[in-house]
């Protein structure tokens, strides 16, 4: 539950209140089948794919179904700006449906529906009779490829990239595979050079550059930026990220001394670890945190190369920064129990599952959604706050931090609650 960017947030209803959005238990009586619930960013709508009497599927929003229905429908999602999307199929043709309007073109298959960071772009992978490609904001890439296995959208939502297979390969053809049949296409155009493998990629903050993890030959992996491999290579690498507003790329790489964090192919922290991943840039665009394993089976967060004193035996998830960048928190697991650690100190309360923590805008408080004993709860600074929920969706602070929007399910009813942040503690 990382703090998402919601473009319309200012216009939401921030009056403190508790409002029932829909009796979702009633839906289970009204329809043959009710699938998983999703809630709009502003909490005003709850939706799920449902099955009609005629056995077709359609999204239901606050108890009302769309006019369009489908033989199959899935991947129901609200975009950050509040539009409701799903993937639907009729007569073996799939498309994206946005707020009950199917997009113009349909395809043999559509999957991996994604939104850009600013909420404006929506895209997905597609298969057509001509091959694989990307559908972005209603436009289909002109070039199609033998195969495609990912799509990343630029932060502004106007560009898309993903890994492509450039030539067909018969099963068992190890010699041809060794030639390197994988590449990245950005807006449908492949880079100049191919690689043995290409995995995850990332866009720069302005959307102009793409970096990807690539394998040159067996046992030699590196990062390629706009198609050009770093001059150094490693036994293994993980997904790169860009430092905002720059061409600089940060990625972990496995050297003979262990895993290191690398900046443009050179060691950044001058330290090696048993593992390092989940590197995250702070809100100032400079501070860098990552999950590190200083010793086998021990995990913690390092910020600019300085590790928390406390390590955790099982798992440490993505570091989350406060908005001033001074504090960090992460979901952690030790001895089979999950909790949140803030600046290296774990909350004493333990849970069956925790979601990524969220800092209050002033950085003073840390909130997290947690699950224990069959119910969901909101945990504030380590204390369970409010009731046990049947379901709890993401929560959002108002920009000034004085209010908190909670979207939850209690007794079969979906609620939207706005409370004063000061009442949380």
């Amino acid at each position, binding site marked *: 539950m990382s703090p998402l960017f919601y473009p319309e947030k200012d216009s939401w209803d921030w009056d403190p209140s508790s409002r029932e959005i829909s009796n979702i238990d009633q839906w289970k009586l009204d329809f043959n089948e009710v699938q998983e619930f999703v809630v709009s960013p502003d909490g005003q709508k709850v939706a799920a794919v449902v099955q009609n009497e005629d056995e077709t599927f359609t999204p239901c929003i606050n108890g009302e179904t769309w006019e369009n229905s489908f033989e199959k429908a899935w991947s129901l999602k609200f975009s950050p700006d509040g539009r409701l999307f799903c993937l639907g199929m009729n007569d073996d043709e799939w498309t994206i449906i946005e707020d009950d309007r199917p997009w113009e073109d349909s395809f043999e298959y559509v*999957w*991996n529906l994604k939104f850009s960071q600013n909420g404006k772009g929506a895209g997905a992978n597609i298969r057509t009779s001509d091959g694989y490609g990307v559908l972005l904001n209603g436009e289909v890439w002109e070039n199609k490829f033998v195969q495609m*296995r990912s799509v990343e959208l630029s932060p502004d939502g106007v560009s898309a990239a993903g890994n492509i297979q450039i030539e067909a390969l018969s099963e068992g053809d190890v010699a041809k*595979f060794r030639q390197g049949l994988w590449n990245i296409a950005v807006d449908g155009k492949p880079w100049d050079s191919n690689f043995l493998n290409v995995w995850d990629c990332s866009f720069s903050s302005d959307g102009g550059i793409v970096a990807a993890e690539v394998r040159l030959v067996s046992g030699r992996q590196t990062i390629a930026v706009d198609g050009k491999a770093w001059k150094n290579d490693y036994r293994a690498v993980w997904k790169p990220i860009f430092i905002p507003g720059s061409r600089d790329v940060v990625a972990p790489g496995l050297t003979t001394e262990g895993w290191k964090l690398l900046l443009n192919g050179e060691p950044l922290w001058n330290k090696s670890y048993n593992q390092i991943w989940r590197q995250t840039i702070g809100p100032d665009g400079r501070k860098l945190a990552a999950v590190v394993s200083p010793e086998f*089976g021990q995990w913690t967060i390092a910020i600019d190369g300085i590790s928390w004193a406390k390590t955790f035996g099982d798992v440490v998830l993505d570091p989350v920064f406060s908005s001033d960048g001074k504090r960090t928190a992460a979901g952690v697991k030790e001895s089979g129990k999950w909790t949140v650690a803030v600046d290296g100190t774990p909350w004493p309360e333990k849970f069956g599952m925790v979601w990524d923590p969220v800092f209050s805008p002033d950085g003073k408080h840390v909130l997290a959604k947690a699950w224990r004993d069959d119910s969901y709860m909101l945990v504030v600074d380590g204390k369970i706050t409010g009731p046990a929920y049947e379901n709890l969706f993401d929560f959002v602070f108002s920009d000034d931090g004085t209010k908190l929007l909670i979207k939850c399910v209690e007794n079969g009813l979906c609620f939207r609650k706005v409370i004063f942040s000061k009442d949380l503690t």
Partner: protein
Amino acid sequence: MGLPAIPIVSDLGLDETAKALNTEQIATVVNRILDQETAARFKVYLNTCVHCGLCSDACHWFLSNDRDPRFSPVGKVKQTLWEIIRKKGHVSPEFMKDCSRIAHTECNVCRRCSMYCPFGIDIAYLLLVVRRICHELGMVPQFLQDTVNSHSVTMNQMWVKQDEWIDTLQWQEEEAKGEIKTSRIPLDKEGADVFYSVIAPEPKILAQLIGNIAQIMAVAKVDWTMPSLDGWDNSNMAMYSGDFEIMGRVERAHYESALKLKSRRIVMGECGHAFRGAAYDGPKWLGWREPPIPLIHAVDFYHELLTTGRIKIAKKFETPVTVQEPCNIVRGRGLGQKLREIISMVCEDFRLPEPGLEHNYCCGAGGGTINCGPPWKTSRVKGNRVKAEQLAATKAHIIITPCHNCHSGIEDIISGYKLGMHVKFFSEILMEVMEVPDELKC
């Protein structure tokens, strides 16, 4: 009288690689691996072995090849590592071809021999070091390498494309709904109790197994999910070819997928080697002491469903059955007793194999051996005559095995030795005997 010649098998992956290698390259790789990658136990094992040969009787290859010492565990180490070390890595490409034959195709890394060695030497580990050296030289049987190539591209072992995967799940959900109306395969559901993962032969050629699990989950009312994107395949042939970097990437994809969906545990379908990769080798390479999310093998899961009464048995299966106990979950994890209990719970006439439990013989297909493909099938089947004899002695008609490799390997043995038996996964038997409440029936 000398030993019979080992039949020459041509394999592109070995023959072509040998042409391009020289002794210097081999020595460089050998010395790097031995200096930088082997753990302290490697030297201890090598120095402790007293060459007594007590491990020989453990190995199905040795027993099935008329006690030919070349197939004994210590014989395999002698012909490979000892020689490599004695020559400080200065061995020929032809020699490395033999190493790959021995380590990749004539050892299932089943670890039965460790139980017979008075010092508990992990001979399978030593042969995995040989595999690692072979991999670093590109000396890997063609079909095994192709499987690893598939893992590297798709994170699954059978080149299944992303759209094919999702399409198959949606198709199987429909099929399951035709039998049990509440069946679903919830895709990407966040916070589910169970993240269910499978191995690629299921969507590729055995899709009904996915439909079966959808029905079982519906009857047992399990809160579960499957991911739409990569990370759904829990298998790992890179672990067995010696490509640990790809092994790590594949295992990370599996766990990241479950961590992202906030699943509380991973239940994996019926496979043994996949359990080993996901429970031990993968996490260890990545730095996790234990899997980051509890990993439950299908045998454990079915045991839970049956003993808690979430699945009830309408009428027990009557045909005589026996079991092929997969090394990686029985010897490797101690699930043998639970496996026998669940079979007894659903089958009327369960005939125990001898030897059994952790002393069971390997199916002969595990350890990546079956993935070495058609060129090596004859020697693989010949190398497991003892398994055929063991199964035939039970006089059962059906062999239950909760493992994909065992399933295919035992099928080859049944046809190779004309046993006239059939192999089934446990879930296939469960589907036949499970009680389905009337309100769930179509």
